[in-house]
């Protein structure tokens, strides 16, 4: 009985992971790659993220929250070693935080927009943290983010 339940559980988990992988696997790999900057490492992390996800499938709110936002946050937590840069290092490294990206879509953004988008989306930094880093007001950071988002959105539509 227990064995049947266990097999059913594995099957359910496996199906859930399969459908998530088919829909978001490539997006997650692209996301992870932008953070770790290494294809092989990104693939290893992708495997780890999906394995961890199989344990946390019930904890995530698939009805009320966006699946992609949740997956992206879930992956970023697992990449904390890459996303948490010491504050002084981040300030010193301000210019080079973004631009090793092989993603051509970032090319549409100016230097500031790239920095804000990258720091938030990939590193999960708060508006306050980026505002302090760039010595700009929080409202301005939000405005830059909106502009960056609008450009990327337009690019995605085309």
């Amino acid at each position, binding site marked *: 009985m227990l064995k049947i339940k*266990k097999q059913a*559980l*594995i099957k359910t*988990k*496996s199906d859930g*992971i*399969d459908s998530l*992988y088919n829909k978001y*696997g*490539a*997006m997650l*790999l*692209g*996301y992870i*790659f*932008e953070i770790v900057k*290494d*294809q*092989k*490492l*990104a*693939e*290893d*992390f*992708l*495997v*780890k993220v*999906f*394995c*961890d996800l*199989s*344990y946390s499938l019930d904890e995530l709110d698939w009805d*009320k929250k*966006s699946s*992609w*936002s949740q997956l*992206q*946050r879930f992956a*970023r937590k697992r990449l904390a*070693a*890459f996303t948490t840069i010491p504050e002084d290092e981040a300030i010193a490294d301000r210019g080079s935080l973004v631009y090793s990206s092989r*993603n051509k*879509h970032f090319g549409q953004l100016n230097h500031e927009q790239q920095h804000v*988008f990258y720091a*938030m*989306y990939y590193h*999960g*930094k*708060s*508006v306050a943290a980026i505002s302090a880093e760039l010595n700009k007001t929080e409202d301005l950071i*939000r*405005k830059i*983010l*909106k502009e960056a*988002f609008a450009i*990327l*959105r337009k*690019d*995605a*539509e085309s």
Partner: protein
Amino acid sequence: MLRVKNYIESGILELYVMGAASDEETEELFYMREKYAQVREALWNLEIEMESVAQKMAVIPPAGILEKIEAEINSLVQIPDPDYLKVDKSSGYNSHSKRRKDFQFIEIEVASRQIRVHKLWAWAFAFLFLLLTFFLASAIYFYNKDNHIEKQVKQLKMELEKQRKR
């Protein structure tokens, strides 16, 4: 209405879909989403657009990754510790298979200064404590009794001497 429009324009929705909103901002957003259809619609559109942006930045995984994930999940079900699967940051080497070989060895950490004893010892110590209390009470009782008798003997001796002198 203006409040809702300003809220949508504030950039909080973008923060949320990028996973950078604080807990307070998220809570407020959920409240606004429930209350105002415009917020709900704006957030829905942004989430779809964010997915489109992420799709544009997607990297197609090489063949075999899904099979690898399924194999890892099946092996993790047998070893109930998800942290067992660790990715070595420096080398990118997945240490699962290596650690699996080492699984026959037990890691011992001698950090605690406490020892574990069987529960029966609690009863033994309680019995010993009661026994010691009984002996102590008895000792005090007999000591006092002895003192009392000694005083009485002395008193009798003194009375006898007095009678002899008379």
